[in-house]
């Protein structure tokens, strides 16, 4: 009902209008907003508006113990939480001079790749939903759930595992886990042709996604694009290979690239990465039983642990791009400063604003999902 004091306002006639896109909008990934200026259906300018998921992580971490923050960090990126834990643990290990046992490193690699699989399935499922192909989303989410089951078996948590601690991992791999993991990989591999037929070779998808949100390699480098989005412009760069951490230098995998730089290429890169992750996981399953030893190195009493003073900058490749932690310690039992460099802080703000200009309104959601932007990483 209209309030009594309602008065219609007369606007001057114009072909340009402004539209609030989000935060309450099904085409937005997470809780994020856009203000777009339109002429007809064409976007003239776009402006990102974040902060809906701001929790002040960096401030919270300064007030908690080193070990307590392990429970906090996975919340920074919800679809892909494991790289957060690993990266933060790596930073502390570098500061404290801890030597992580080899077995723990292999288990961490296994988790990272499982998480990447889950996040990629979720990412292109979400992209499919923005182009109206809900079946792919249903399949992707259902297959992701099978990976979450394995996470639950390994770590006890479905989404947030809180399994990596400085010095190693919390628990030993359960009996029979690797066999179940192996059969899951067989299943996922057998599903890939189905996904190809349903989605990646689907003319509806190809026609919708080709040349949408395209950028050149030069632009991508200039805007600070990383991860699969950078590889979709033809540059074979991967932190796993070029700045190796854990045992990635002992693993055999390829870095898939695509030349296009558009939404289609970004999804095809993700599809190829699924295959590479399965390949890495198979190598881990093969090698892990032969690597014996402890799963974590001894650490001081974590409730009164004064990490030596210093600073470290660690980077890992998350499913969305380059993830980095800058951790400063002054020798106290709490971090002095933790800075999280989420990959989406570039993708969801500047890159998205640039790519949306000139595209049609119905493609804005598609561009956001094809960049796999994760708003909580931006807001922190």
């Amino acid at each position: 009902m209209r309030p009594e004091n309602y008065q219609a306002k007369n606007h001057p006639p114009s072909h340009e209008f402004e539209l609030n896109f989000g935060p309450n909008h099904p085409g937005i990934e997470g809780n994020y907003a856009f203000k777009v200026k339109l002429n007809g259906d064409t976007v003239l300018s776009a402006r990102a508006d974040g902060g809906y998921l701001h929790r002040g992580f960096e401030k919270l971490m300064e007030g908690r113990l080193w070990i307590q923050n392990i429970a906090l960090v996975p919340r920074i990126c919800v679809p892909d939480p494991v790289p957060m834990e690993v990266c933060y643990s790596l930073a502390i290990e570098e500061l404290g001079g801890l030597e992580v046992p080899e077995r723990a490193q292999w288990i961490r690699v296994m988790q990272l790749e499982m998480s990447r699989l889950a996040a990629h399935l979720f990412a292109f499922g979400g992209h499919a939903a923005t182009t109206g192909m809900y079946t792919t989303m249903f399949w992707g989410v259902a297959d992701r759930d099978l990976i979450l089951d394995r996470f639950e078996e390994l770590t006890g948590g479905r989404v947030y595992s809180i399994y990596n601690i400085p010095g190693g991992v919390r628990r030993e791999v359960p009996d029979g886990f690797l066999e179940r993991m192996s059969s899951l990989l067989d299943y996922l591999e057998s599903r890939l042709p189905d996904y190809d037929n349903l989605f990646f070779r689907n003319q509806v998808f190809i026609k919708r996604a080709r040349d949408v949100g395209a950028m050149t390699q030069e632009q991508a480098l200039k805007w600070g694009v990383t991860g699969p989005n950078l590889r979709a412009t033809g540059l074979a760069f991967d932190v796993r290979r070029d700045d190796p951490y854990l045992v990635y230098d002992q693993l055999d995998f390829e870095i898939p690239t695509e030349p296009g730089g558009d939404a289609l290429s970004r999804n095809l890169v993700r599809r190829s990465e699924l295959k590479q992750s399965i390949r890495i996981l198979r190598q881990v399953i093969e090698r892990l039983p032969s690597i014996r030893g402890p799963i974590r190195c001894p650490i001081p009493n974590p409730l009164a642990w004064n990490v030596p003073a210093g600073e470290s900058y660690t980077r890992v490749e998350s499913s969305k791009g380059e993830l980095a932690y800058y951790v400063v310690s002054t020798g106290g039992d709490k971090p002095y400063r933790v800075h999280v460099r989420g990959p989406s802080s570039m993708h969801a703000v500047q890159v998205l604003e640039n790519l949306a200009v000139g595209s049609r309104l119905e493609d804005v959601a598609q561009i956001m999902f094809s960049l796999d932007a994760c708003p909580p990483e931006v807001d922190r």
Partner: protein
Amino acid sequence: MSNELENIPIRQELEVLQSGQKRTNPLANVFDGLVKFCRSRSMFMLHYCTGCGAIELPPAMTSRFDMERLGIQPMVTPRQADILLITGYVSIKTLKRIILTYEQMGSPKYVIGICSCTVNGGMYWQSYATAKVLRDYLPVDVYIAGCMPRPEAVISGLRELMEDISSGRAESWKKYYQHYDYYLGNQQKLFGEDWQTPTDIIAEARHYDLMTEHTLGEHTALLEKHQKPLEALEMRLSVKDKQKV
């Protein structure tokens, strides 16, 4: 309120419900039961991911757990939605949008607080940016605790809400009208004295005949003092026009 509205059926039904009397016409009782049954079996939940608990909703909605078999479906617009799911922590910026959204939803409407953060701040108890107790700002029907609750827990919470609706216990949306002063006071404390929403809750409370002595109070007086006449929302864009650059 004009005189024509006096005879609207919903008003009679509410009166009967409030006084606890059974209606004399047996057919009306059957009809009431049918309405409640239908309400509980076709719940449209608003598609708004307010926090990290939203990651467990896609599994709950899609093939594996399949909420749609219970008649629960996502709905994209607040005007047609019945349930507002608050999935996780609410930052102050989001809480404003949640209240706007909640007031736009048509009655009867239900609120479910998912995740521990909506109960008492959860692990963000220290955070300057998140609101702690959701119940202070909105009436909540069901809480589902956990960080984050599994899809099974979400579904069991929704089933509890279904039972509450069919038995007539889920009436918290009336509380928002009946105790508007209290909720508004908490909102004003957080957002500042000049906080206002485009929805005229007091007029709606009059319309539903849910005015009590707690609807109006010092906070609504403050609201009236600051209330500006409602006009089309202005939006400013400060971006440089990219075409000119």
